[in-house]
């Protein structure tokens, strides 16, 4: 046994890269199966873009759970509210959005996204105070309360905006695709990819390079110890909850534009998807959530291309496969 001097650096935790390689391997495996290279590129870009959007929606949920052991079954409501708020800006200013100029398009798109994030963030504050705080620490009641919140939010949207599907056309600058050789890549998907990457990097930087991030990670690992050191973890948690809600709202805007339509039921629809992503990634892990989102999107896109019938249950199969391999998700962060 060698002696360890006090001045030695702490042993680095072993890097666990197997999950990181998973999407890469999956994508490469698909090349021979799909056959045509141009469709492979299109599908891969599509799944990466879809994965980014799902990641944006899911990231808040996984952090909220990891930090405070609160699972928000009403997370989908933020997604739907975000998409609807965006229509409030995008539809009256449709002439700007349809103008043939990138700047004018952005001048309406950016405020719409910001407003959505503001509204959903504020809504997050209300939900946290009214629905989550009173039943803090009681899983059963949390699930029931937040499910109730989801119903109320969805029905209020129906009452305010009507039950019909609202069309939400993409701004002109993001319509169409870039053509590289015989590969067509849709502009909006590239934009989604870009935003998703920026947000992923921003979250990783905040978590790993700032004091707040340090506290959040410490709180995920051992909440009581952080409290014992004198930090007000409740306030930290409120901040994370609001940020997560705002991100869900942004995801909702992006999803609405991606589908070019908005309906209150996207909340329900995406809740399931987001849950699967969070489970696959491991509750509380941002990196796991990122990989999980890409995997889910890949399975949906490749699966939809190769075996359309399978697409109905492909997510469940993916979840089962991942949990067989790692029962607590790709990256298990919490000891819970």
């Amino acid at each position, binding site marked *: 046994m060698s002696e360890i001097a006090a001045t030695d650096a702490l042993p680095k935790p072993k890097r666990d890269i197997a999950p990181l390689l998973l999407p890469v391997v999956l994508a490469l495996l698909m090349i021979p199966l799909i056959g045509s290279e141009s469709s492979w590129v299109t599908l891969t870009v599509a799944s990466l873009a879809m994965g980014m959007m799902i990641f944006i929606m899911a990231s808040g949920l996984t952090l909220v*759970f990891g930090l405070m052991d609160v*699972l928000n*079954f009403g997370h989908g409501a933020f997604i739907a509210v975000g998409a609807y708020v965006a229509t409030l800006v995008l539809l009256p200013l449709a002439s700007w959005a349809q103008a043939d100029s990138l700047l004018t398009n952005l001048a309406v798109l950016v405020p719409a996204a910001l407003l959505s994030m503001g509204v959903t963030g504020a809504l997050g504050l209300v939900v946290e105070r009214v*629905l989550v705080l*009173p*039943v803090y620490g009681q*899983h*059963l*009641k949390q*699930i*029931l*309360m937040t*499910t*109730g*919140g*989801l*119903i*109320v939010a*969805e*029905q*209020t949207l*129906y*009452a*305010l905006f009507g*039950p019909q599907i609202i069309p939400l056309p993409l701004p002109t600058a993001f319509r169409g695709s870039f053509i590289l050789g015989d590969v067509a890549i849709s502009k909006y998907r590239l934009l989604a990819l870009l935003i998703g990457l920026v947000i992923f990097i921003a979250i990783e930087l905040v978590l790993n390079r700032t004091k707040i991030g340090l506290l959040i990670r410490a709180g995920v690992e051992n909440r009581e110890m952080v409290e014992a050191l004198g930090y007000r973890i409740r306030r930290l948690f409120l901040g994370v909850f609001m940020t997560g809600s705002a991100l869900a709202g942004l995801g909702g805007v992006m999803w609405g534009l991606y589908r070019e339509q908005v309906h209150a039921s996207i909340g*329900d629809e995406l*809740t*399931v998807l987001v*849950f*699967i992503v*969070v*489970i696959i990634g491991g509750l509380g892990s941002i990196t796991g959530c990122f990989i999980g989102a890409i995997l889910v999107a890949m399975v949906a896109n490749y699966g939809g291309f190769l075996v359309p019938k399978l697409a*109905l*249950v492909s*997510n*469940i199969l993916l*979840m*089962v496969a991942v*949990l067989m391999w790692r*029962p*607590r998700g790709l990256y298990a962060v919490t000891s*819970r």
Partner: protein
Amino acid sequence: MMILSGDPPRSRALSILLVVIVLALLATPFIFPGAKALNVAAKICIFAALVASYDLLLGYTGSVSFAHTMFYGIGSYAIAIALYGLGPNWTSVAAAVAAGLPLALLLALAIGLFSLRVEAIFFAMITLAVASAFLVLASQLSWLTGGEDGRSFQLPELLRPGTVFIGKEWFGFTVNGRILTYYLVFFACALMILALLRVVNSPFGRVLQAIRENRFRAEALGFRTVFHLTYANCIAAMIAASAGMLNALWLRYAGPDTSLSFSIMLDILLMVVIGGMGTIYGAIIGAAIFILAQNYLQALMSIASTAAADAGLPLLPGLLHPDRWLLWLGLLFIASVYFFPTGVVGRLRSKPGSSR
């Protein structure tokens, strides 16, 4: 007491309420004329059994499942597909039972063994995912399930409304196949509820409660908690599937909206919470209150909505529109989880004067 498995209602008001509900349900075909009253009564019976089986999960083991409608739907579709495909006779009904119940059992076993080993929250998420996949599957495989339209079918001869056993000239009302079906539903549901009472008051039920209160401790005492939870899940699934079969027999139809949709799951949750979790009796009370309200309050809402529109109030007509019934339900749900976590039964059982 034997029939109630030594678990009486333990409150005079509750006993009276239960007796009134059961007697009213028993006598519905004779004292409330009309198809609507009979439909409401049958729905109360079916939902009382369904909700009681859900209570076994939610109230006695503390695990939230969102897949209960899936099992309900399996039962409904089993009957519908069998009677549609094999023709309206008792062999098809037997075939449906022989196919539907094992299917529900296997699925519950798989979900349970897979997801009940860890946190309650995990189980909730996985059941939600599986149930939504099943809903999509049922509405897409239209060659089998009839897709969004569902399947209508004929009942066996004996249960048809045209089959008259006692004519009107005898007692002033007709006893026909419809009424026979109603009593089939009534007694089957009563039997299932009594069986559930037996289950929760057995040593097995006590272990479930121990797991709910403190899983770690129950495990330390030597109980294999995963198996207990999985058994409970299987029992609940079988009863839910049976309730689904009765539902299909009563409606002569099975479709995504009547047997699988997420809103039925919410209804079940609400009924459990209103009635009182972990009591079984709560299921009967919850189902009765909820379904009566659903059928008769919506009419009231539409009156209020029109009145508000006539008065020129903004927003209110939209909020009070009968289609927004779920909105008020959701608010009621949150309020009852928050203020009355023990439900009606818990309230009636607690001594007057004390706060709990």
